[in-house]
């Protein structure tokens, strides 16, 4: 593999690791939304290698729409959390993210026997799915759950773009991405739960 090819494989994966880590570890929602936007740009970059430009652009547009929709409903303050987390929160999440990245790096060749796609796409998809799952597993708040689901689904979309180039699938997946953001925005707009009497 030439140096250029290696770089083309490593750079998108490294960027995805950075964006997903920003979403997982960052406490300011503005950074998370920016990271989500960049994430969809890289998803577009990976998808356009296997899909026609127009279909790949659908993923970018729907992803950015999702990011915009979520940002309109996020809380007025700066933080994604309802309460200030303990300092160990960041350390714990960082260690977990590190573990996930190590696991992804070690298992992606095995995944290739199930899903035969290019290394670049495989690695990118695995990072998104792994980091999205850890986000889902460690979060209870609506914004983080929606961000986690969008991350997992965008990882799946990267895989699936290489396997299926149907217009209907691309359209339906775009609708699901925006639908998820709409559902998330709706849930985030609901008032804080008041404990039931008694």
């Amino acid at each position, binding site marked *: 593999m030439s140096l250029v090819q290696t770089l083309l494989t490593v750079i998108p994966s490294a960027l995805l690791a950075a964006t997903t880590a920003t979403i997982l570890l960052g406490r300011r929602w503005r950074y998370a939304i920016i990271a989500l936007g960049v994430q969809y740009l890289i998803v577009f970059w990976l998808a356009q290698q296997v899909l026609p430009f127009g279909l790949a652009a659908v993923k970018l547009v729907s992803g950015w729409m999702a990011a915009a929709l979520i940002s309109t409903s996020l809380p007025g303050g700066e933080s994604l959390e309802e309460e200030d987390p303990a300092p160990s929160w960041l350390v714990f999440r960082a260690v977990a993210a590190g573990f996930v990245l190590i696991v992804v790096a070690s298992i992606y060749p095995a995944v290739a026997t199930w899903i035969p796609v290019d290394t670049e796409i495989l690695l990118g998809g695995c990072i998104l799915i792994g980091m999205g799952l850890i986000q889902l597993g460690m979060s209870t708040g609506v914004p983080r*759950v929606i961000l986690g689901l969008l991350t997992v689904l965008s990882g*799946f979309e990267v895989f699936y773009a290489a*396997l299926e180039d149907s217009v209907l*699938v691309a359209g*339906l997946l775009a609708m*699901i991405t925006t639908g*998820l953001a709409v559902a998330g925005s709706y849930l985030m707009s*609901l*008032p804080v*739960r008041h404990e039931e009497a008694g």
Partner: protein
Amino acid sequence: MSAPILWVLLPGLAGAALLLVRNRHPWPGVISGGLSAALALAAVFLQPGEAFGIGPLQMTIGTTLTVFGRRFVFLAGDSGLLALIYGVAALWFFGGLALRAPGRFYPLGLMMTALLVAALAVEPFLYAALLVEMAVLVSIPLLAEPDRRPGFGLLRYLIFQSLGMPFVLLAGWMLGSVEVIPERELLFRQASVLLGLGFSFWLAVFPFYTWVPLLVEESRPYLAGFAVSMLTTVVLFMMADFINGFTWLRGNAGMYQVLQIAGAVMVVVAGVSAAFSRKLQRLFGHVLIAENGFALLAMSLRSQAGMEIFATGLLPRLMTLALFALGMGILTNRNVRLDLPDLQGLARRFPVSAGVLVLAVFSFGGLPLLGSFPVRQGLYELLAGQNVNLVFAVLASTAGFLLAGFRMLAAFIVGGSGGEAEAEGDLERLMLLAGTLCLVLIGLLPGPMLRGLLQVLLAFPNLR
């Protein structure tokens, strides 16, 4: 006019239009219920692809609608499925009318039903996963209470249902590649694993079941009952369609064993949890889980008799769930907390609701002369021929539901203030009594009451 336009586009668009008038009680409920009932009747009398006459006019409802090169197809054999789904939806909508369910229930419920029906019609079948996910997204505003932040149950529901989609899509892609890849055995194994995971997420198979009781507890029980029972029933149909469509899957004995174990574990876990449930909503959640377990057990029998039990079990299943949810809905509407200690003396205050709730749990537990009994008896008989130990485990777990029923009965008739009956509304009482009569009639006359449901199996010709 094609069948997908009639049974998918029309209710979907009607649902979207009803969003605009959702608060004008009772019209959204009347229109949703009426349209669903009309679509169910249309499915009984108008077979897709077959000619029918209105006076001198001869017409045919087309079978296919093509969208971006993919097809939505309903054949004559799908009529039973359509009639059942829309008939049950009508029942829930009319129940909602009696209950004065929130206005959002009718449009979103109708759209959800249309999307789930579309999932059964789409070809290639792998696209169904995308439509199921869209139905899940539509159900989110239905299940979220507008006056409070969503809890863990709703979020877990969204997570688990969304995670099911990629697995089923990937499995569908693998099955489509079988023709061009030489290593078929490996591919079949991989596709089976992915399918199994996808359906496990969708059907709340152990250990992915925790969201069900939580969701019912957090949302309005009636709305949660509608969403979860419709969703899981259609997913069970999709599963049957998968098995029907792939010869290798039908011939795979291991797959049936996995189904059997998964079904038994669901019934056992739900039965044990039900015995200790102090909240009616949680008990309802466990009933939902166990109902899916029983459906899997029936499908796992790998015989025509097993599929007949699956099909005939659908009506008692859906009736029991609807009655249980309606009973709880009536109580929550009157600010009655659904914890057993708070329900003491309920039989004096709400005699019909209390009776129906107990009856629904007993029916689900398989008490003789009630709706589920004939189906359960047939299932146990066939299952005993394959695995006696499993029958004992399932029977013991069913006792958990009977125990829960006796605890409810004790709480309802003992203690309490002994005040005057607050009573249900006339329409509520009518719905409760009609449903109860139906459950008892199914128990007494299972043959005539359930035979029509065998039409559902026409959609799965290879499983009959």
